[in-house]
């Protein structure tokens, strides 16, 4: 996969925030040349951050220990891509509603990419962002909750903007980057600003109780629906047609024998 050189596109808080016009997020931005993982940095900030700096955006040009689901390593190229985490304390959200934060991120990413590049991404259930059926971005949410409220949440995102993983990296799914599809380098700054505006819009709607609207937007972007898929879960592999998603966000899959399976967690692969 070619690496797109040039593109001196530094990310700094003043440039990101200048005239952004958002209302709920971010309240503060931290940019780092290199971190272990933006998730870890965001979680550290959450421990002692006063409420007026949250939600806080943590960006890095490079991660030395980036991770995805189940602590899997996340590949990146220094300064080429968008690597960020959003730290928040959404105490107004019940734990059973936490999937809405993942829908929010998936929808905002698709909308931000579409607005900035003219491309039309789709989502692989639950929230991998696809272009040309290849993964261009991944999302991860780490949170903590009591029985009644989400006490903290860190939303992590890795978006391949100008570099995708090299061919010698063994990946579970095919990947790409925006620049490969467009055939030219892509500036990160307008992209991150657009993403923040979209995140702000959906976060505000979610706070206002518009879960159903968000669910509808997320469901409409799911490329997985109607496809024959195989899902690897912690308890085994299930194969069948991905029929729909439940209001909880669970994937409804019908196997060859006609039985329905509801999947809440797992890796989906097209068959």
């Amino acid at each position, binding site marked *: 996969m070619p690496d797109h050189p040039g593109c001196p596109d530094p990310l700094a808080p003043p440039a990101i925030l200048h005239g952004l016009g958002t209302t709920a997020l971010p309240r503060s931005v931290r940019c780092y040349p290199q971190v272990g993982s933006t998730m870890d940095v965001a979680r550290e900030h959450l421990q002692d951050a006063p409420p007026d700096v949250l939600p806080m955006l943590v960006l890095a040009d490079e991660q030395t220990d980036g991770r995805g689901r189940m602590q899997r390593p996340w590949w990146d190229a220094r300064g080429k891509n968008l690597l960020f985490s959003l730290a928040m304390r959404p105490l107004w959200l019940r734990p059973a509603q936490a*999937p809405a934060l993942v829908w929010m991120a998936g929808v905002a990413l698709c909308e931000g990419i579409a607005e900035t590049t003219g491309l039309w991404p789709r989502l692989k259930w639950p*929230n991998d962002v696809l272009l040309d059926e290849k993964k261009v971005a991944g999302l991860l949410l780490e*949170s*903590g909750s009591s029985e009644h409220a989400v006490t903290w949440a860190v939303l992590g995102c890795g978006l391949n903007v100008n570099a995708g993983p090299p061919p010698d990296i063994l990946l579970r799914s095919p990947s790409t980057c925006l620049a490969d599809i467009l055939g030219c380098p892509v500036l990160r700054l307008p992209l991150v600003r657009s993403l923040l505006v979209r995140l702000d819009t959906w976060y505000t709607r979610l706070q206002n109780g518009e879960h159903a609207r968000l669910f509808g937007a997320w469901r409409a972007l799911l490329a997985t629906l109607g496809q024959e898929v195989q899902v690897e879960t912690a308890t085994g592999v299930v194969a069948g047609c991905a029929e729909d998603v439940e209001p*909880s966000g*669970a994937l409804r899959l019908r196997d060859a024998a006609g039985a329905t399976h509801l999947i809440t*967690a797992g890796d989906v692969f097209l068959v």
Partner: protein
Amino acid sequence: MSEERKDTDDFWLSAVRELLHLIGHTDITEILIERHESRLHIKRGGTIPLPTMEAPAVPPVLRASNLAPLGSSPPQHHLHIPASAAGSQPGEVPDGYTILAPMVGMFYESPSPRDAPFVQEGDEIQAGDTVGIIEAMKIMNEIESEVGGRVVRILVKNAQPVEYGQPLMVIEPR
């Protein structure tokens, strides 16, 4: 409020929640209610065929772990199950503060397969300590105990699907 819920509860969700609550608090392992042509069958663990659902010729399977809708009410804060004897028998739930699953998903006892469990039976914990993770749709949600004390019983296994409101572990408060 309650009337509004009645009107929109076409799928007996409130009844299902009540039954899940009941089954989680007692030794009952299976509940079957039949009324005219409708049938509601809830069983602890495993999957239940529902022959009156949309494809009668090939019964679909409904996993009870996915019955909690997005907007459902939070589970009961905690429950106290009286111990019949001073020392509880294996399989018997001891008295204490029971931490309930606040969401549907997969329970993990540690941050990753290579890490040690957050807690084990006999451990002393503080209020706010993480006692496990529930994963659903790429959310890794750490379950924080609302009380400090001793972990007297862990009721779920690693990588086990858990249901909304399902008891996870019992804490003997300090």
